[in-house]
């Protein structure tokens, strides 16, 4: 009950904060002339939600993309996974990315997880993005389809040595609501994975979900916004064994430092969740209390 109240309190704080960000920014935006701004690449302006952008033909980019997950039901829990990523756009419709994964785990006193403090090179990934619907001055909608196979030797949640194969499939859509100023982003996610532990046990699972985000360009190089994610977890790739779901909510920030260098930051808090067979608030078995993202990119 106390957890439910706390979650509600967080929700109550987060919503007005987001509203203030939007309302506070509207005034300064009115004062600026967005028509003189260059078009913006939408891929990274929505936080954890990915926009439809695929870059420019011939463009290459190196990025460091860290995602941190914090807080379980008890004890202390902090885990990060960082992508060291090279991406390039070979055609005007396709983007390819690949790279290595590094992870950190700092876990103590969490039920069901071994205590651990470690840093490791944890795996590798590749991503293929195809722009299916492109935005024009007459069509504000753009849609990109993406697949991202990933292999890990370190479990994302527990930090244990495993063999994990994941195949993330996403639909990334965005709408330009006001020319050069206001954008809405939407993602659909299906992420099946199989994990083989050191003891030979094989676990199959899948996460499905969707997100909605709203981002306002408050200056030519700064975008502020908020996003909400709904995620469902299954103990089967074919979605037959539902184990719980969660709603994550939080603000997003994008800053372009130079024409070739930018950063994006986002923070999500779990504001609602449930675990099947466990009458507690929030789903902290499959998800976390908070997650944060910090990404820096250099184009060349």
């Amino acid at each position, binding site marked *: 009950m106390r957890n439910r109240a706390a979650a509600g309190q967080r929700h109550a704080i987060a919503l007005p904060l987001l509203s203030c960000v939007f309302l506070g920014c509207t005034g300064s935006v009115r004062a600026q002339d967005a028509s003189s701004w*260059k*078009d*913006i*690449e939408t891929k990274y302006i929505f936080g954890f939600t990915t926009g439809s952008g*695929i*870059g*420019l*033909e*011939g*463009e290459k980019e190196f990025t460091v993309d860290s995602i941190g997950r914090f807080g379980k039901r008890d004890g202390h829990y902090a885990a990060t996974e960082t992508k060291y990523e090279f991406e390039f*756009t*070979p*055609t*005007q*419709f*396709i983007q390819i990315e690949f790279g290595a994964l590094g992870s950190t785990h700092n876990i103590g006193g969490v039920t069901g997880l071994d205590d651990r403090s470690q840093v490791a090179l944890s795996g590798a990934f590749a991503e*293929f993005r*195809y722009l299916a619907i*492109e*935005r*024009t*001055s*007459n*069509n504000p909608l753009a849609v990109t389809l993406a*697949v991202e*196979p990933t292999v890990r030797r370190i479990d994302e949640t527990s930090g244990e040595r495993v*063999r994990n*194969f994941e*195949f993330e499939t996403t639909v990334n859509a965005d709408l330009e609501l006001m020319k050069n100023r206001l954008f809405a982003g939407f993602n659909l996610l299906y992420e099946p994975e*199989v994990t*083989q532990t050191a003891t030979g046990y*094989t676990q*199959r699972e899948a996460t499905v979900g969707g997100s909605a985000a709203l981002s306002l360009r408050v200056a030519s190089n700064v975008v502020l916004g908020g996003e909400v994610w709904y995620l469902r977890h299954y103990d089967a*790739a074919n979605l037959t064994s539902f184990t719980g779901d969660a709603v994550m909510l939080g603000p997003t920030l994008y800053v372009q430092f130079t*024409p070739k260098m930018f950063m994006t930051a986002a923070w999500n808090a779990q504001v609602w969740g449930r675990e099947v067979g466990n009458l507690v608030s929030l789903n902290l078995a499959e998800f976390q209390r908070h997650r944060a993202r910090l990404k820096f990119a250099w184009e060349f």
Partner: protein
Amino acid sequence: MSAVLMMKRLTLAALCAVAMLQVSPSRAQQATEVQVTYSKGQFQPSEVTAPADKPITFRVKNLDPKAMEFESKSLRVEKVVAAGSEGVINVRALKPGRYEFYDDFNEKARGALIVQ
């Protein structure tokens, strides 16, 4: 079928799908050529037109004594054109609309392609 094998097959299928999508029929069509000159930090003409649904070849002649970067988010192209030289940029067949381009090294240099 083991789960690992299934994942490998899914990855292979996705790669094949991406490769097939990459084959664009527009490559076979005759491209419309658009000539733009870059001089004194400005595009001339600053507005050019091209027909819809046909690929476009931009020929950008840089007459300035320093390099410029022809770039456009909506056209999804970028190319550095050295001082005193010409850059050729191929663009896919486009739908009707306005597509802005600029020099990424010079905020003030703007132009637009009107596709109709």
